[in-house]
């Protein structure tokens, strides 16, 4: 039986399924937040456990490596805890957290830019991940020829690099909308701008990616 307090619909990610699924969010988030605000700090672990996949994925797609993504997402959760009193009752916690994660990623990029000795490895995966160099899972088509499979991996790698080359705003808009599946309105809310601005960023990002990936896109018949 569903709880009566079911109200808002949001997007949640599941680490196990590796797929972004829209799920119905109960008012349990608000209950948890109220409990934390009234002094039960341990209840915050529920929110961390529920949204850590979302935060990590967003940070990874914006920063391109797991180490930075892990640091930025953890910092985002701590900052969200500090600012929990400012969370609006009617808002979605996921959207609010997305916004904090995006801000943390911006700070992380600025910090990284000030450290010229640190080479920013685009798409650098976790140490135990043998298939580094791409943000995306390589899905090999068994029916495809080895050369096509190789071209597909190369495309995955090049797309990750091309996304990393985008200016931060274009990258954020593209990633939020196309990679994380946020509607334009929610992406605009996360970025703190108008829907039209998000559309413009996505359009420019798509143009840049199209130019960069022209040989691969031609192969794909685009």
């Amino acid at each position, binding site marked *: 039986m569903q709880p009566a307090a079911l109200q808002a619909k949001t997007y949640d990610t599941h680490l196990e399924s590796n797929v972004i699924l829209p799920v119905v969010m109960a008012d349990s988030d608000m209950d948890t937040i109220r409990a934390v605000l009234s002094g039960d700090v341990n209840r915050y*672990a529920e929110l961390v456990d529920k949204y850590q996949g979302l935060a*990590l994925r967003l940070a990874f797609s914006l920063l391109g490596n797991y180490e930075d993504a892990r640091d930025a997402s953890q910092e985002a959760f701590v900052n969200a805890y500090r600012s929990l009193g400012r969370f609006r009752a009617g808002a979605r916690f996921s959207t609010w957290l997305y916004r904090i994660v995006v801000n943390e990623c911006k700070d992380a990029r600025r910090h990284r830019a000030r450290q010229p000795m640190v080479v920013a490895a685009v798409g650098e995966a976790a140490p135990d991940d043998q298939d580094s160099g791409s943000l995306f899972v390589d899905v090999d088509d068994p029916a495809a020829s080895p050369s096509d499979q190789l071209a597909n991996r190369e495309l995955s790698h090049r797309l990750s690099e091309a996304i990393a080359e985008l200016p931060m705003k274009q990258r954020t808009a593209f990633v939020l909308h196309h990679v994380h599946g946020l509607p334009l309105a929610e992406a605009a809310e996360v970025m703190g701008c108008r829907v039209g601005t998000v559309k413009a960023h996505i359009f420019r990002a798509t143009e840049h990616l199209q130019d960069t990936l022209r040989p691969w896109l031609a192969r794909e018949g685009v």
Partner: protein
Amino acid sequence: MDVAVWFRTWLHQHPLKDPAVDRAHYTAEIMARVRAVHGPAPVASRPWLQIPRIVFASAAVAAGIAVTIGTTQLSHQRLAARVVRDSHLLASLGEVDPELLAGDEISTLPQEAETIDTLQLAETGPSDEQWLKQTLQLLDQVNESPTEVSPVNDSHTPSDENWLNELEMLDEHEFSSSS
């Protein structure tokens, strides 16, 4: 195929890589940091933040009006103070009767000045050109023509000639007596 559609399809088929983290460990790390956060606990929810934006907008407009009115009143007060200060200065120079400055000057002077301005405006006559035209019309009505006065007049009147003759005779008399 549209490139945006292609991207969407490709990204749907190739999701982001899984963050290889131990969920429990990750949560524990964050909670350790959260518990170590010093300072006040998360502030209690502030109900005033939930007031609709229209209320905030109205309050902002009201505050703007109050500031504008306050500033305007302040400028009047400054003007009145300046008038009084100048008047005292003039009084010290003997230009203004000091008795005129007695009383509640700051509150009444701006109104008085405004009244005087209004009176002066009402009493201001027509321009010189108009005045001349009206005068000529009046002279026409009484059948008199204005005397033409020329700054340069070469013809001498009889009285002028007499006076010049007297002057010449006087000069000759003085010359003869001195010699």
